[in-house]
């Protein structure tokens, strides 16, 4: 394909000496914070601590799943690491370079390498553009030359399971699943390395969802893509992810190898979350012992002291309400933030 990517003009090559860059880690997030100010009449009344001290890494070619319930901060993490929202604090090392320090030129480069796919297949596409225009838009925006634009778009459409016949049609002529495929083709037009998938199938039916998930997996293999996969659905995260992080109220409470965490979830919240997922098998579901947690997640404006989960935790001890547990390693690639371990 005749794309000519402009040379990278990096005047802010910033290797942080504090962290040795391992070859396999594409993204390292260190102590990321995002506080949204709550505006009062005159003064800031406080902050929504949407993301509070979150650290994790994603290896090249892997999928890191981020799970947790509504409002726990998943989307904020996804958008902050792309700098679609500015972080309040913390480092985001992409290929060893801290993107929080990037100036315009480097950001342009980064914006091509790192893409995001949203949940809503209806509002994410311009209804007045044809599929061809939609897919070409980012390429034009970045001033990239393409020899044969039509061929270029057809190739992308075929990669995501659409075809030539769709080229000059409009979004409203497509189903939800097909629209997500168009969004995906558009993302791929910039040959990204890293894609944030923010609930890409939660608006779709299961039979359509399965199709899209398979396509995402195929493309990842083919193009060696790295994914941050955000979802509130554990079963899907399990299907998609190599490693995963469980979030609760702005914090990562458990991180590590996905299979291991599914085998043996350690954090009480992870346990509660796993136990609450209805298993699509009545023989198991009707017989299983459920670990029910009380109440609902409290507000991230004034989060509980100590461990943020302590008011709902069935195992809370005295220290849990007083001191915040750190994210500690319990075994190879398995970290938990809980006073029980």
């Amino acid at each position, binding site marked *: 394909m005749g794309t000519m990517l402009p040379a990278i003009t990096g005047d802010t090559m910033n290797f942080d000496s504090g962290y040795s860059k391992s070859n396999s880690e594409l993204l390292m997030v260190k102590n990321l914070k995002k506080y949204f100010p709550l505006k009062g009449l005159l003064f800031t009344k406080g902050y929504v601590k949407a993301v509070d001290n979150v650290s994790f890494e994603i290896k090249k070619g892997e999928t890191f799943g981020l799970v947790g319930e509504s409002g726990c901060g998943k989307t904020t993490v996804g958008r902050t690491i792309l700098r679609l929202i500015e972080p309040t604090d913390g480092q985001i090392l992409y290929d060893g370079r801290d993107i929080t320090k990037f100036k315009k030129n480097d950001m342009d480069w980064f914006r091509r390498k790192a893409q995001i796919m949203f949940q809503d297949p209806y509002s994410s596409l311009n209804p007045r553009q044809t599929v061809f225009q939609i897919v070409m838009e980012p390429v034009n925006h970045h001033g990239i030359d393409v020899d044969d634009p039509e061929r270029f778009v057809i190739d992308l459409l075929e990669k995501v399971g659409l075809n030539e016949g769709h080229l000059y049609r409009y979004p409203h002529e497509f189903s939800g699943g097909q629209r997500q495929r168009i969004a995906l083709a558009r993302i791929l037009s910039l040959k990204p390395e890293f894609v944030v998938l923010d609930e890409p199938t939660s608006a779709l039916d*299961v039979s359509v*969802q*399965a199709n899209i998930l*398979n396509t995402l997996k195929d493309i990842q293999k083919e193009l060696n893509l790295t994914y941050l996969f955000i979802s509130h659905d554990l079963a899907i995260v*399990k*299907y998609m992810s190599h490693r995963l992080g469980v979030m609760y109220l702005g914090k990562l409470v458990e991180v590590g190898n996905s299979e291991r965490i599914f085998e043996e979830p350690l954090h009480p919240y992870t346990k509660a979350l796993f136990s609450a997922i*209805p298993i699509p098998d*009545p023989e198991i*579901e009707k017989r299983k012992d459920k670990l029910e947690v009380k109440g609902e997640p409290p507000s991230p404006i004034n989060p509980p002291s100590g461990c943020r989960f302590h008011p709902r935790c069935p195992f809370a001890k005295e220290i849990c309400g007083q001191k915040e547990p750190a994210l500690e390693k319990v075994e190879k690639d398995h970290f938990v933030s809980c006073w029980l371990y």
Partner: protein
Amino acid sequence: MTDKVLEVKNLTVHFYTYAGVVKAIENVSFDVYRGETFALVGETGCGKSVTARALTQLIESPGRIVEGEVYYHKNGESVDLLKLEEEEIRKYRGKEIAYIFQDPQSSLDPLYSVGFQVSEALYAHNKVKSIKEGIRKAVDILRTVLMPDPEKRVSNYPHELSGGMKQRVTIGIGISNDPKILIADEPTTALDVTVQAQILNLIKEMKRKYGATVLLITHDMGVVADMADRVAVMYAGKIVELADVFSIFKEPIHPYTEGLLKAVPNPLIKIERLETIPGTVPSLINPPSGCRFNPRCPLASQICRAKIPELEEVKNGHYVACHNR
């Protein structure tokens, strides 16, 4: 447990829209047994909500119930709910048959306290003599649905409550008149899983306590596995398979049910690749002739395009609508 409380026969609802006649549900027939949880499951637009609403004539223009009978059995008597005048059916709605909808936001009035709304429901069916008495009773009802701090919460307005609490209120209103049938249309779809678990538990608890029959509508196979005794699987406006929950999951017979189950990821199993159903759901204005699933079906043959398959009993209590199974 084969005492029928509802008998639905050939229920057919059409919507007369600009674009054409939407054949939303066609010849839907099923029985619901007293005390069971009967689940209607299927993907978006397959007709679950229309079916549930049609049972008590809750279909608004441009929709119309074109055909069908819905027999409600009580104390040895039976009445066809579709033959009743609006004034008559109102007495059944809420009192004999109560609904809980997906979105608690829209089923509660933002202008009134939740206590008032529970009280109003009681007053409407003459369970209390005044709204004031109803509000006192509302505290008890909120307590039954495990609302934290019911004495305080009774004077809260909907926006002051979380999604889970609002759903507790609608369940409270639902059970306030001691209904015989509780129709829950995606009661937990808008909620987080840990809260969903609490609400599903509450529904089970209410069922145990009041012996109500539950008609549960969901698209979530996990919720079906958890809650249902029997299941009807719908596709494009028709029931394609109906059986007890264990048979549906273990020995699905209809190709659509089979495909659907394989497309659902099970978090306990390591799945290399999910299976998928090719194609998309058809338009209900011009549904495919014969079996509505035929364009997507791996088993489709000549007859599938020519003739509509009837829902037939292939094993004891296991009904399937398919020519090739």
